[in-house]
């Protein structure tokens, strides 16, 4: 495991150890260990069905783990029902109460605690925090999706939970609104100092928001690290493939010297930084991100490719070039005609050799 990827953060808030959850014959969560430090913005990232939502639901208390241990502030969570966990959730569908006004929705958790003297003021403050103070008397169906989402956030933060869970909260919104709300959520999290556990399948969103990204695959954690590390040093080929537009080239490790190895690939031998635990003879994958390939360079070109596809995107074009049966993706300033030959320079020192995902 990579030791450098654990960021130095504040004390531990939530600890999950060996947590397993099965539904009938399918295993949704297959023995995961997860730590959430105080004030962290942690994102569970993965394709649908990877178990990320189940993890969130177990933290909220809607699902009970089959085995394993979960602690919040070092208190075991097993016997604590959802209503007594200092945890609140922002649901994917917002789940606002249709028969209550915005004010009543936001005040819901305070009312359940009986008479709180400054309730109106607190509701007002929570709505102010999400710029919805003028909408207190509206009903949910009178609001747009983005506005409902803001109300859902206000409702979830008003009781000042230790931990806020967000289940794909922006997935139903259009791209522009999503961008706005990402910035607001991040700012809100910093201001409140509450730990967020955020679930998404959108890697751009995960990178934009998170201190720590946990990539999940088939109920297991594939990698847990800060966004930069996930991006530049993916723990295995699944993470590399899920994260970006990278080209994955299969090969075999020839030799290793410390943090650098040489891999034998159809493109030839490439020397690059290597993941921990890979040794000479192991099957491996060379991860080439689009920005590491260029059609312009100095000296001799590293490779020669044939343009197989070209997508004009305005300020640049995305090119797919064929080299020795491998399709390499890169960006060019001008479009190329299909079938033409193109010299390619590879910045091998910034590519990465990683494990083949199981």
């Amino acid at each position, binding site marked *: 495991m990579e030791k450098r990827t654990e960021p130095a953060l504040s004390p531990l808030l939530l600890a999950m150890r060996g947590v397993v959850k099965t539904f009938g014959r399918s295993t949704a969560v297959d023995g995961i260990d997860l730590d959430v430090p105080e004030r962290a913005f942690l994102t569970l990232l993965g394709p649908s069905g990877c178990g990320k939502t189940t993890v969130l639901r177990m933290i909220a208390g809607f699902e009970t783990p089959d085995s394993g241990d979960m602690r919040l502030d070092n208190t075991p969570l097993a016997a604590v*029902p959802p209503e007594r966990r200092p945890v609140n959730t922002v649901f994917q569908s917002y789940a606002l*109460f*249709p028969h209550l006004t915005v004010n009543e929705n936001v005040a819901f958790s305070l009312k*359940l605690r009986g008479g709180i003297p400054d309730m109106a003021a607190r509701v007002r403050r929570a709505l102010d925090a999400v710029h919805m103070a003028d909408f207190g008397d509206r009903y949910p169906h009178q609001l747009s999706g983005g506005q409902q989402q803001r109300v859902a956030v206000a*409702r979830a933060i008003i*009781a000042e939970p230790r931990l806020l869970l967000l289940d794909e909260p922006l997935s139903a919104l259009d791209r522009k609104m999503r961008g706005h709300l990402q910035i607001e959520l991040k700012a809100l999290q910093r201001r409140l100092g509450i730990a967020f556990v955020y679930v998404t399948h959108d890697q751009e969103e995960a990178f934009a928001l998170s201190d720590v990204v946990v990539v999940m695959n088939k109920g297991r954690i594939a990698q847990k690290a800060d966004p930069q590390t996930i991006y530049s040093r993916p723990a295995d080929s699944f993470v590399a493939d899920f994260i970006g537009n990278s080209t994955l080239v299969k090969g075999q490790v020839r030799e290793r010297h410390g943090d650098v190895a040489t891999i034998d690939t159809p493109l030839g031998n490439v020397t690059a930084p290597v993941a921990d635990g890979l040794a000479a003879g192991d099957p491996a994958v060379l991860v080439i991100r689009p920005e590491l390939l260029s059609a312009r360079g100095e000296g001799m070109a590293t490779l020669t490719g044939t343009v197989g596809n070209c997508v004009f995107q305005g300020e640049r074009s995305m090119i797919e070039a064929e080299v020795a049966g491998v399709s390499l993706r890169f960006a060019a300033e001008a479009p190329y005609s299909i079938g033409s030959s193109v010299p390619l320079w590879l910045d091998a020192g910034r590519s990465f050799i990683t494990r083949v995902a199981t």
Partner: protein
Amino acid sequence: MTFRQRHLALPVAVAIVAGCLAPLAVLVAFSFYEVEDFDLIPAFSFRAWGELATSATDWFLIGKAVLSGVTTTVFTALLGYPVALALTRLATSAKGLAIIVLLTPLYTGEIVRIYAWRIVLGGEGLVNTVLQGLGLIDEPLKFLLFSPFTIGLVLTYNNLPFMVLAIWVSAEMVDRRLIEAARDLGARPVDAFFRVIFPLTTPGLAAGSLTVFALSAGEMLTPSLLGGTSGATAMALVDNLFGTAFDWPLASALALALLATLFLVASAMAGLLLRLKGARAVIGRT
């Protein structure tokens, strides 16, 4: 609703209104007729209405019908909610079976059920025999059969399926994530019921209540055959006046008075339930 949709509903609406108003018009006319030597004579007489207005028995029986309808509605609602909510939690395949089982009593026919109740509740019936066998009682419990208790029990039993069905349909429409959201925000299951599930199922409760009220307030057979001395009903009196006593004007006046009273109570019930915020959130979103 577009004009075309309204247009399509028109024939049925006309049929319902005509089929409802025509017999009522006949009743209204009859209530002003006179009877002479078992002959119905067209007239404009207030004899029947006057007799009705001064009859304590008639108004007692109308009040009894209302009371019977309201208590049956309350009991079926109290028992129906847990059953309906349990239904929503079953697997889809089990739901169909559960609903068929729920409706089983309705397939057996009322007379069969009434005689079955006599066997179960009688002095030497199932319940008394078992209780005596266990040594819990020395004498058979007399109130089990031919008493107001019997009427209440059997009317509740007969009408429970209608209430459960109505609440169940409404409860299925409540997004389960709303209940999770309530729990997440600090609601115990009982809080979640009163603050989320109950408000959002009031349309179903209203539909069930109106159905059960109408069916039980107008019930005649069960009180007559199982109620003993307490089994007199306004319906039985109407039947008696039409059939045996041949006082059609009084029968018509009594039937109309009963109808008007039940109509008023049902309207009040519907108005009350559908005015709740939860009901408006479900059915009034325009």
